[in-house]
């Protein structure tokens, strides 16, 4: 059974292979107050209510999935089908609930732009699985009200993985305009991650030309982290520890780009028989990295 990547990003706990996250920069959900009140009034209470509604749908999808994976030897095809249908239904419900939650987070941020809850709402809704485009009015909320907030780390992690062009603009703006050195450092680090994601991300279609265009700025930003922000702590880790991995990723991003030659694969098949990817030259090859887990 394989899940779509957007769900894998959520179902990290169940591990369908590595989820779609930056290794050095795990997504962080904000910590809304755990107690849901019947009629949420304050922005923080409203935020918790949205999170709880979504969590219920996530829980349903995970338990349907667990039921499906607990197959017994005596199970009939009919029983398998019933479980599969329950799972498909839960996934559809989850997608709906998630889209609805994304809309509600954004509405909350717009209604109470100056409240700390707006920052938490944006930090959640801008994670890539919600598919929300970072528009100018949302950028303005962060720049106007939260530019030097100590709670900006969560938002920066989310925005680094949000592939809308506005995300790059916001990170640049924060790095330039924040007066707090820690915020500046985190934003610069997030901007590098954003750039690397544009080159190597799951659905990136970046070419050699894109790489040539982005590389000088990414190098400059990494140098800046090394000289100015090495001691800044981001998500519990000193940025100095991230510099070499970033340089390594930038170097590696030069391969596997669209329009470049596919690296040769010469290996054994499932039966132990050797063959090569280039044996199929002349044909279109759909190369599918898969696993049955």
């Amino acid at each position: 059974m394989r899940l779509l990547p957007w769900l894998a990003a959520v179902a990290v706990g169940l591990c369908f292979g590595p989820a779609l996250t930056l290794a050095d920069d795990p997504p962080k959900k904000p910590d809304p107050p755990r107690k849901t009140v019947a009629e949420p009034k304050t922005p923080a209470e409203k935020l918790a209510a949205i999170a709880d509604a979504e969590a219920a749908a996530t829980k349903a999808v995970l338990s349907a999935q667990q039921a499906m994976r607990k197959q017994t030897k005596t199970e009939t095809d009919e029983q398998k089908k019933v479980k599969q249908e329950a799972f498909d239904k839960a996934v559809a419900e989850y997608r709906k609930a998630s889209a609805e939650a994304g809309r509600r987070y954004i509405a909350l941020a717009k209604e109470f732009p100056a409240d700390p809850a707006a920052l938490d709402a944006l930090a959640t809704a801008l994670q890539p699985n919600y598919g929300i485009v970072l528009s100018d009015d949302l950028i303005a909320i962060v720049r106007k009200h939260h530019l030097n907030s100590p709670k900006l780390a969560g938002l920066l992690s989310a925005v680094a993985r949000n592939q809308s062009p506005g995300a790059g603009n916001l990170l640049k703006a924060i790095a330039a305009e924040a007066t707090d050195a820690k915020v500046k450092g985190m934003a610069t680090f997030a901007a590098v991650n954003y750039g690397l994601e544009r080159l190597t991300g799951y659905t990136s279609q970046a070419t050699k030309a894109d790489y040539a265009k982005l590389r000088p700025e990414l190098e400059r930003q990494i140098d800046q982290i090394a000289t100015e922000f090495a001691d800044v702590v981001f998500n519990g880790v000193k940025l100095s520890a991230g510099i070499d991995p970033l340089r390594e990723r930038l170097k590696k991003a030069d391969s596997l780009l669209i329009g470049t030659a596919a690296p040769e694969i010469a290996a054994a098949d499932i039966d132990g028989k050797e063959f090569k990817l280039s044996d199929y030259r002349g044909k279109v090859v759909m190369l599918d990295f898969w696993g049955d887990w």
Partner: protein
Amino acid sequence: MYPHERSLVEKLKDKPFTLLGVNSDKDRAALKKIIEEKKLTWRSFWNGPQGTGGPISKEWNVQAWPTVYLIDHTGTIRVKNPQALPGEEKALDEAIDKLIKEAEAAAKVGSK
């Protein structure tokens, strides 16, 4: 994705197209059973006993499963994860069709 992959392989069996897997299951014996049960007719490289940490997925910088690359008839990478682009399976099908047309056109020129 298996049902869609099965239908692609069937639909495109007379076209210049191949579905190749790179499998990252650790247990090769168990894998053989799955391939049989689920009627996966296409060939796969095996990523080795380290599973997702194996050498092929490392070389191809695979961070998430499944990851798909479409490679054209000249051996050039053309599309990454089309199944995750807007339109999903339809986007995958359209990208494959476009590359098949190119391969057929090139074969025609070559045979003249």
